[in-house]
C-alpha cells in the first residue's frame, strides 16, 4: 500500500492545476465535477490508508531512494494511524466545504475551489511527511493558499487587511521555522526526522538543539494560533468566506499542533529526558484556552467569535500534547476530530445566516433567526458539543486529557471551553430566539460585512451544516474510537519504533485486538463536563443582560487585538524569546 501516500498529495494538486489552467475554457459544471471527484477520491484513499496503516507505518520513499545501512538518503512519507486519521478528517472537512461552496462561492470565483484543493494536498503532505524540510515546504504551500483564500473577496477592505495580517504574521513564523531547520541540519547533518532523532539521542543535547527546537516549535505555534501567536487568527477568519473558514478553523489551525507533536516524538524527545518541554506547552495551552474563551465571549461578529473558540480549543489540545503521555495525545486526537467537524459545522451555519440576512453580526441579527429551526438546532447541537457536556462532541477528548493533567490545569481547560461555549450559546439565544438586549457595549464595534450572497441553494447549505454538526456530536460515543485513538497515540510516541521502521524497515510487533466499546471516563471528568455546561448556560444568560459600562480589562483586551500587523509580529518575537528562555532554563 506504499503507493497511497503520494496520491493523497498528487490528486488534489493535479486537479487544482487542471482547474486553474483550464479555467477560461471549461464550463462550471465540469469544473465542479473535477473538484468533487478529486476531493472524494482523496477522502476514500485516506480511509484506505488508515486501514492499511493499522499494523505498521506505511513508508513511501520518493524515487525509490531507500535508506542504506540505516542512513536515510531520500525523502519519505511515513504514515502511522494518527497521521492517516488526520488525513481522513482533513479530506472529509475539505470535501464538505467544497460541496458547501458549490453554490455559496459560485459568483465570488471558481478558483477558490482550486485553492482549497491546494490546501488539502498541502495539509495531507504535512501530516505524512517524514522530512524536516518538506514540513517547511508543505507549511508554506498551505500558508500561501490560505492567505489567498482569506483575501479572496478583494472588493472590501476587511478581507484585504485580514489577509495581509495573516500572511505577514504567518510568514514570520515560517521564517523562524526555516532558521530552525537550518540550525538542526547544522547540528545533525540530516533532514530525515527519524535520522535526526537517532543522531540527537547519541550526542550531548547542547544549546544549539534547544534554540532550533524553540524556533521550530514557535513556527508551528504561529500557524496553530497559540497565545501570544494567535492575533492573526480572528482577523483572517472574520473575513474569509464561510466554507474557507470551516477549513482554516476546523483543520488548518490544528496542523501546527500536529507539527509540534510529530517533531517532539520523532526528534526532540531524545534531548528531553525529564519531559521538561511539556510543561511549557501545558502552560501555553492553558493560557490559550482561557484567553481564547474570554475573547470569544467579547465578540459580536460570529466568525470572529468562532475564531476565538477555535483558539480556546487549540489551547486544550496543546495542553493535551504538552502532557507528553498516551492519554493526553489520544485526547488531543479525539478532540481534534470532534472540534474539526463541530467548528466546520458552526461556520457553515454562520454562512447560512449570512446568506439569509446579509450579516453575521450577533446584535444586528437579534431575533432574525426566529422560525429557521433547522439552523437553530444545528447551532445549539454544535455549541453543546463544543462545551463538552458528558459524552457529547469534544467531551471524550477532554476527559482523556484530564486523566493525566494536574488539577489546576483541568479546571482552567474546562473553564476555557465553558467560556467559548457560553459565547456561542449567547449568540444562538440572541439570534434564534430574540432574547437579550439589542445592544451590548462589551462586544466592541461592528465590522464591515462582505456583500450579500446571491444564487445560493439554501437547502444544500443547511444539509451540509447539519450533517457536519451531527457527525461531530456523536464522536464521543462511537464505540472503539477512544481505544483506537490511544493505540494510535502509543504508536506515534514510540521514537525508537518509528526510527527502526523508517531507517531499517523493521516490522512492528502486531497490535493486540482493540476493544470496540465506548470508552469510560472518570467521575471527575463527568462532573467537570456537566459543570462546564451549566456554567456556560449561566454565563450566556448573564451575557444577555443589559449592560452600560465595560470593565477596564475588557478594554485592554480589545486594544491588544489591535489589527496592526507590526504589533502581531512583535508578539511573535516576544513569545518566541520567552518560550525559548523557559526551555533553555528547564533543559539545561
Amino acid at each position, binding site marked *: 500500500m506504499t503507493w497511497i501516500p503520494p496520491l493523497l498529495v498528487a490528486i488534489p494538486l493535479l486537479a487544482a492545476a487542471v482547474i486553474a489552467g483550464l479555467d477560461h475554457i471549461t464550463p462550471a459544471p465540469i469544473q465542479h465535477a473535477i473538484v468533487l471527484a478529486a476531493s472524494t477520491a482523496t477522502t476514500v484513499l485516506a480511509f484506505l490508508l488508515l486501514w492499511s496503516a493499522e499494523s505498521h507505518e506505511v513508508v513511501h520513499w520518493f524515487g525509490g531512494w531507500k535508506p542504506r545501512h540505516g542512513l536515510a538518503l531520500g525523502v519519505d512519507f511515513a504514515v502511522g494511524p494518527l497521521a492517516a486519521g488526520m488525513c481522513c478528517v482533513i479530506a472529509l472537512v475539505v470535501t464538505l466545504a467544497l460541496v458547501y461552496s458549490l453554490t455559496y462561492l459560485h459568483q465570488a470565483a471558481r478558483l477558490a475551489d482550486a485553492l482549497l484543493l491546494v490546501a488539502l494536498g498541502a495539509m495531507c503532505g504535512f501530516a505524512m511527511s517524514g522530512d524536516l524540510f518538506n514540513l517547511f515546504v508543505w507549511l508554506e504551500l498551505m500558508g500561501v493558499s490560505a492567505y489567498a483564500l482569506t*483575501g479572496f473577496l478583494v472588493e472590501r477592505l476587511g478581507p484585504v*487587511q485580514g489577509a495581509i495580517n495573516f500572511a505577514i504574521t504567518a510568514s514570520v513564523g515560517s521564517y523562524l521555522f526555516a532558521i530552525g531547520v537550518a540550525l538542526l541540519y547544522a547540528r545533525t547533518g540530516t533532514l530525515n526526522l527519524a535520522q535526526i532523532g537517532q543522531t540527537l539521542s547519541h550526542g550531548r543535547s547542547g544549546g544549539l538543539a534547544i534554540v532550533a527546537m524553540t524556533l521550530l516549535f514557535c513556527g508551528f505555534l504561529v500557524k496553530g494560533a497559540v497565545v501570544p501567536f494567535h492575533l492573526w487568527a480572528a482577523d483572517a477568519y472574520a473575513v474569509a468566506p464561510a466554507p474557507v473558514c470551516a477549513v482554516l478553523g476546523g483543520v488548518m489551525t490544528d496542523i501546527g499542533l500536529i507539527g509540534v507533536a510529530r517533531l517532539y516524538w520523532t526528534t526532540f524527545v531524545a534531548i528531553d529526558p525529564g519531559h521538561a518541554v511539556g510543561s511549557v506547552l501545558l502552560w501555553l495551552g492553558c493560557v490559550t484556552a482561557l484567553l481564547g474563551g474570554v475573547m470569544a465571549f467579547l465578540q459580536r461578529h460570529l466568525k470572529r467569535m468562532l475564531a476565538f473558540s477555535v483558539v480556546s480549543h487549540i489551547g486544550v489540545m496543546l495542553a493535551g500534547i504538552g502532557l507528553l503521555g498516551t492519554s493526553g495525545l489520544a485526547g488531543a486526537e479525539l478532540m481534534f476530530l470532534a472540534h474539526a467537524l463541530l467548528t466546520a459545522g458552526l461556520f457553515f451555519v454562520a454562512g447560512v445566516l449570512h446568506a439569509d440576512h446579509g450579516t453575521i453580526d450577533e446584535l444586528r441579527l437579534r431575533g432574525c433567526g426566529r422560525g429557521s429551526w433547522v439552523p437553530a438546532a444545528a447551532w445549539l447541537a454544535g455549541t453543546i458539543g463544543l462545551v463538552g457536556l458528558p459524552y457529547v462532541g469534544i467531551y471524550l477528548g477532554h476527559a482523556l486529557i484530564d486523566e493525566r493533567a494536574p488539577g489546576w490545569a483541568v479546571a482552567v481547560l474546562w473553564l476555557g471551553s465553558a467560556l467559548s461555549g457560553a459565547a456561542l450559546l449567547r449568540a444562538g439565544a440572541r439570534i434564534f430566539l430574540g432574547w437579550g438586549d439589542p445592544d451590548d457595549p462589551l462586544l466592541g464595534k461592528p465590522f464591515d460585512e462582505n456583500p450579500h450572497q446571491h444564487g445560493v441553494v439554501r437547502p444544500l447549505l443547511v444539509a451540509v451544516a447539519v450533517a457536519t454538526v451531527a457527525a461531530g456530536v456523536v464522536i464521543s460515543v462511537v464505540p472503539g474510537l477512544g481505544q483506537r485513538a490511544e493505540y494510535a497515540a502509543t504508536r506515534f510516541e514510540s521514537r525508537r519504533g518509528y526510527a527502526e521502521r523508517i531507517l531499517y524497515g523493521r516490522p512492528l510487533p502486531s497490535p493486540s485486538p482493540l476493544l470496540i466499546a465506548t470508552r469510560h471516563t472518570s467521575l471527575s471528568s463527568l462532573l467537570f463536563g456537566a459543570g462546564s455546561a451549566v456554567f456556560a448556560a449561566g454565563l450566556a444568560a448573564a451575557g444577555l443582560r443589559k449592560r452600560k459600562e465595560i470593565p477596564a480589562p475588557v478594554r485592554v483586551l480589545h486594544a491588544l487585538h489591535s489589527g496592526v*500587523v507590526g504589533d502581531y509580529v512583535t508578539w511573535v518575537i516576544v513569545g518566541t524569546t520567552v518560550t525559548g528562555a523557559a526551555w533553555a532554563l528547564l533543559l539545561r
Partner: protein
Amino acid sequence: MSYLPYAVAAWICLVGIAGIATSKNLIHLAVCLSVTQSASYVLLLAVGYVKHGKAPIFVGLKLGSKAVDPVVQALTLTDVVVSLAVIGLILALALDAHRLAGTVDPDRLHEAQG
C-alpha cells in the same frame, strides 16, 4: 570556521523583524519580510560551507576532493521560490489596500480590530 556568517545571519534576521514591527508602509514591510528571509539563506549557506571546497558539481573533480554541501544550496533555492509566492501575494494585497483605503500604512487600516 569563522563565526562571521552566523553573526551576519542573526543581524539580518533581527533588522528585518525590527523593520516589519515598525513599518509604516506595506511595500516597505514586504521588503523587510524578504530581508528577514534572506537571513535563512545566509545561515544555510554558512552551514554547508567547507573551506577550500569546490562547487558540488562532480564532473571533472577528482574522487575524494572536498566540495561544499549541495543539500543546503537546494534548500536555499526552494526557499527563494517559496518566498517569491508569498511576497508576490503580499504586494498584490498591498495594491488592493491602496485601492480601497487610499493608504498603505498598516496603522491606518482599521477594519480588523478587537
